[in-house]
């Protein structure tokens, strides 16, 4: 097998045993990029020169017998909304198209400590607002399984890069499903950790109370390894939680005996996609066979999730995106007569239509006279949604659902209908509202050979339970070994 096609844990073994060097792995990955990137378009920026410098330095460290991180020498792709010092950080927006990060996000420092190699910055929906990576200022990313379909979003570039073997692993961010839904679309493993588990310092904010960084990987073991690297308390992030992170690889055991898994009836409704339902139901049967106890549960406020999300996330976004005004950095309109016009034109020209739509939604929801009816009400319902999960987790250890209502859809299919697009996240949004962790992994294919995703949720800081379920499932299936033909 080519080096680029291997997982991080396989390559780590080989690098540690000095069978291969980081430079060889990096070379292999860049050869793959040269071969398939013109079709997939997963990246906004490639950091080739710097990547080879890093790989060389790490190889020397290994050669000299110096201690190295568990993921030493592994090439990783970073979503373009995380600050990596000296590299562009565009958020796939015109307004930041010329912005170069003056500092490192905390997760970048953590990955550096692991001696990882940064390949490039991946494409995304503009400011992470979207479910298809079609709103990027730099053009679309294409699903490696079928270049006429979307890779999911907003972390579509990260998911596609891993799926197409253009990266060994990647980081994405998830505000309403932006790691899990593209993972599902691209047939890989994506985890949104518990809110507060991974530092947000240096992640360009979309909706601060919902955003979370997480791994996109080729299998569950890689996901656990990457979580080991990035899950840490950070005093630069006040919402980061000071709970020691466990060794997640310890939860990679096959035994599910006694584990209680809840199936929420609200996630299996009449009219849902038959192929998705069938694959997920079969996955549940397999988990039962592995010793899990399957129980039907109810999350009664599920129907309000989308509405609550589309008030709270745009509200926070409307403030978070206010700083892009052309005064300090980023795009500035070339011809403004006065300050007001500079603001209006810079933002009018710099933001795409979906970002503008959400800024307007949020501005409206926070306006005097509307605040109580929208923002405040949504916060109250958010508490009810949280309570639903708390109640459910009194009875079960994990909850299993489909990740997305359908497999990846056709490019352009939903761009004219924002509401249809928003519905792509119908099964993932509740997790962000509740702040709990959830993982998506491949659990089958449609008859058109498009991947289907299985979502596993657990209570706050119970990523280990998720890994246990996911690993047990993965060890008994081969879906994760399937590769797209490019």
């Amino acid at each position, binding site marked *: 097998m080519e080096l680029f096609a291997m997982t991080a844990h396989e390559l780590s073994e080989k690098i540690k045993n000095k069978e291969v060097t980081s430079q060889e792995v990096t070379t292999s990955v860049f050869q793959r990029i040269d071969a398939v990137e013109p079709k997939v378009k997963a990246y906004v920026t490639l950091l080739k020169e710097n990547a080879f410098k890093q790989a060389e330095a790490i190889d020397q460290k290994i050669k000299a017998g110096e201690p190295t991180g568990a993921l030493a020498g592994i090439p990783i792709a970073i979503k373009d909304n995380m*600050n990596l010092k000296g590299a562009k950080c565009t958020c796939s927006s015109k307004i930041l198209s010329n912005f170069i990060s003056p500092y490192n996000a905390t997760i970048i420092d953590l990955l550096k400590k692991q001696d990882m190699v940064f390949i490039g910055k991946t494409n995304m929906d503009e400011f992470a607002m979207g479910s298809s990576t079609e709103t990027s200022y730099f053009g679309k990313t294409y699903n490696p399984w079928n270049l006429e379909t979307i890779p999911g979003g907003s972390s579509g570039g990260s998911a596609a890069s891993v799926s197409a073997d253009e990266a060994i692993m990647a980081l994405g961010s998830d505000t309403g499903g932006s790691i899990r839904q593209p993972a599902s679309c691209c047939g890989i493993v994506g985890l949104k950790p518990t809110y507060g588990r991974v530092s*947000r310092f240096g992640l360009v*904010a979309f909706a601060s109370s919902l955003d979370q960084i997480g791994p996109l990987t080729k299998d569950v073991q890689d996901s656990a390894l990457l979580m080991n690297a990035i899950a840490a308390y950070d005093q630069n992030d006040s919402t980061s939680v000071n709970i020691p992170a466990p060794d997640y690889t310890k939860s990679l055991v096959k035994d599910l005996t006694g584990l209680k898994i809840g199936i929420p009836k609200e996630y299996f409704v009449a009219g849902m996609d038959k192929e998705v339902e069938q694959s997920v139901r079969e996955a549940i049967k397999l988990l039962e066979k592995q010793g899990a106890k399957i129980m039907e549960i109810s999350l009664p406020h599920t129907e309000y999730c989308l509405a609550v999300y589309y008030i709270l996330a745009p509200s926070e976004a409307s*403030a978070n995106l206010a700083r892009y005004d052309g005064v300090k950095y980023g795009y500035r309109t070339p011809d403004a007569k006065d300050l007001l016009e500079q603001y209006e034109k810079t933002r009018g020209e710099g933001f795409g239509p979906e970002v503008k739509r959400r800024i307007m939604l949020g*501005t409206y929801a926070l306006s005097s006279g509307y605040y109580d009816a929208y*923002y405040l009400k949504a916060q109250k319902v958010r508490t009810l949604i949280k309570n639903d999960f708390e109640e459910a987790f009194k009875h079960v250890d994990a909850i299993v659902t489909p990740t997305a209502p359908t497999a990846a859809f056709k490019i352009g299919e939903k761009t004219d209908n924002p509401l249809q697009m928003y519905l792509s996240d119908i099964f993932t949004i509740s997790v962000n509202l509740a702040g709990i962790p959830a993982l998506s992994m491949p659990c089958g294919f449609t008859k058109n050979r498009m991947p289907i995703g299985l979502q596993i949720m657990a209570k706050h800081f119970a990523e280990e339970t998720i890994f246990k379920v996911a690993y047990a499932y993965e060890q008994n299936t081969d879906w994760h070994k399937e590769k797209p033909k490019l």
Partner: protein
Amino acid sequence: MNYEAVIGLEVHAQLKTKSKIFCGCSTQFGAEPNTQTCPVCIGMPGVLPVLNKTAIEYIIKTSLALNCRVNPMSRFARKQYFYPDLPKNYQISQYEQPVSEHGYLDVQVDGNTKRLGITRIHLEEDAGKLLHEVGSRQIDGSYVDLNRTGVPLMEIVSEPDMRTPQEAYAYLTALKSVLEYLDVSDCNMEEGSLRCDANVSIRPIGQKEFGTKAEVKNMNSFKGVQKALEYEIERQIKATEDGERIVQETRLWDADKEMTFSMRSKEEAHDYRYFPEPDLVPVVVEEKWLAEIKQALPELSEQKKERFIKEYHLPDYDAGVLTADRTISEYFENTVKGYANPKAASNWIMVELLAQLNAANKNITESLITPVHLRMLLELIDKGTISGKIAKTVFEEMFISGKMPEIVVKEKGLVQISDEGAIAKVIEEVLTANAKSVEEYKAGKTAAMNFLLGQVMKKTQGKANPGVVNKILKEKLI
């Protein structure tokens, strides 16, 4: 018709923490533009705020000193508006849950004590500054200096309890004294570390309901606040009497023209779209911490005044003057350390030192005469080494040069002559030379005595001990 004014004040005081409220940058005033900044305070994409705990401690201190109820939990909120000096285009402030509420401050107005309510005290970040000129050079467009961005700012909102501009002035003076005693703010209005906006309305005396208020901004001294209020009250009364309707608006004080001008009406007012700051967790003040801060509160001016009266047996007036400013009270206490005559020290500080400092436009902390030197001077007087009159000459020299009093006395040959033989000799000479005055005195013109005394002092360049001169002169003239 007779009107009364209703005044409420909003005071912004910069807290003198070493670092900014949400990052580690220095808060030092006067640095080169944009040298005290980092990705956090200039609002780079992806940064997050981390609360400076000292800022919370300072605001709790202030809350306790102003008799406020400290909320066990307070929360930050985003106040949204676009302006180039506000890098994030929202200010992290507090809205629904401030640090503390429901306090009061007792102030003295015309010899009476008046209790003025304090509505709330909250914490927020300061904005930067726009520069429209560099030095004296006009520039094309505006430059932004973000050094001040993120300096912790405390907003103290009073109840509309003041009825006259004098009361507003007294409130500000008392509030400044408290903040200085607590050492939480420099309270320098010129440097902008203290700012004050005033809400003012008028109503016919006897009416309960408030009139329509105007918010007056842009005053840069306490006197300015008083003058602006005087003007604004007059303006509102005149407008009302002319049959105009007062509109709710923001008005700017022009200190040169001594007038207020309309800036924006209520209709043009911002909708700040406040909502809870999701990047910060609520501030929880535990009982234990509150008790610790309470325990460590310094003595405030009122308590200190009482103690000065008791401990140093000072008159009420002296104690009031000496304790109005923390630095003056500290100067006094350092002067009288191990010194037996506090009233003399009080006189010298109140009369000589404060007058000289005032004339030189200096703070007492900048005085070249240290408390120890002043004490030495007082001891020289007490020992009779110099007279009180000579001491004033010595004092003036010390004020300019900062020299020790003994050295000034020695350099200028100002040691007092108390030797009776030497003085008697001078008196003999004076009496001989002024036989006419001696005659007059003997004829019953007692004023001649003062003339002769003056002649003796003149002959000794003021160094003769006046007591001794007086005694011998009387003996000789009998």
